[in-house]
């Protein structure tokens, strides 16, 4: 490994470093700073992680829509018709499609995490495969669900 730093290499010494590549951690130790996003080569597990956090935040908003649905139902037929009218509009359907995609991916990515927590699929290839499966399965679940909703006539645009 010719590229590994040599002992005494001044460019790699946190004491004399002037490039800002080292940070003092809260525990007082000096550690190299992680390379930032533009340095990373994008890989699928990175996307899996970013999308999972995005889905989680999306679902937090989705919870508001679910509770709003219960409020509308508890307020009688007129309120319920107003709610379903709004949610049946193109924008409303887009919001619910987004909630469906977020729920489906957070579910499949969550199962992926549980598999990892159990100690399986932790090789690079295994982790990549699990991430691809979770993304494809989520798309199939969400798109299939909405295709069935439209085909059965339960939802009309």
């Amino acid at each position: 490994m010719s590229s590994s730093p040599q002992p005494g290499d001044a460019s790699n010494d946190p004491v004399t470093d002037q490039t800002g590549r080292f940070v003092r951690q809260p525990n007082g130790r000096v550690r190299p700073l992680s390379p930032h996003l533009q340095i990373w080569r994008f890989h699928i597990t990175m996307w899996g992680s970013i999308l999972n956090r995005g889905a989680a935040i999306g679902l937090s908003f989705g919870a508001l829509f679910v509770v709003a649905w219960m409020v509308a139902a508890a307020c009688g037929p007129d309120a319920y018709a107003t709610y379903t009218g709004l949610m049946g509009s193109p924008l409303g359907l887009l919001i619910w499609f987004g909630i469906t995609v977020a729920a489906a991916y957070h579910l499949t990515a969550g199962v992926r995490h549980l598999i990892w927590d159990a100690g399986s699929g932790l090789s690079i290839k295994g982790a990549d495969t699990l991430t691809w499966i979770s993304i494809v399965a989520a798309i199939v679940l969400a798109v299939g669900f909405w295709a069935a909703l439209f085909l059965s006539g339960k939802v009309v645009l």
Partner: protein
Amino acid sequence: MSKPARFVRNVKVSEREGAGEWKAERLTSLILVPLALWAFASAWTVSGAGYDGATGWFRSPVNAILLAATLLISIWHMWMGLKVVVDDYIHKPSTRTALLGGIGLLCLALAFASVFFLVRLALGSAPLPAGLGA
């Protein structure tokens, strides 16, 4: 910080509530897997079913209990997840405390609202005179 670190099988034992929260994250995830699948099936049932379809669905005790479990466990899971997001990106202690307080209050409000409206719907209580859409 005064206590010496404890180790079990060469793994450091968490000093505060970290281990409990880690377990709670996995426990809620595990329970939410079947509940999420049930929620997809339920969404299929109530979609396009109208007011009578929805209120009829709520009056089934199985649906009411499963929905209460889904919502309350989801909100608990959501609270732990959002806390991690704030911990990751917000470094200023005062902003962090304020945000966590706000999110905590929102989660509590969501949990109370879920139970309140769900109980009314499950018991078939009279529509609330809120005048929404009336």
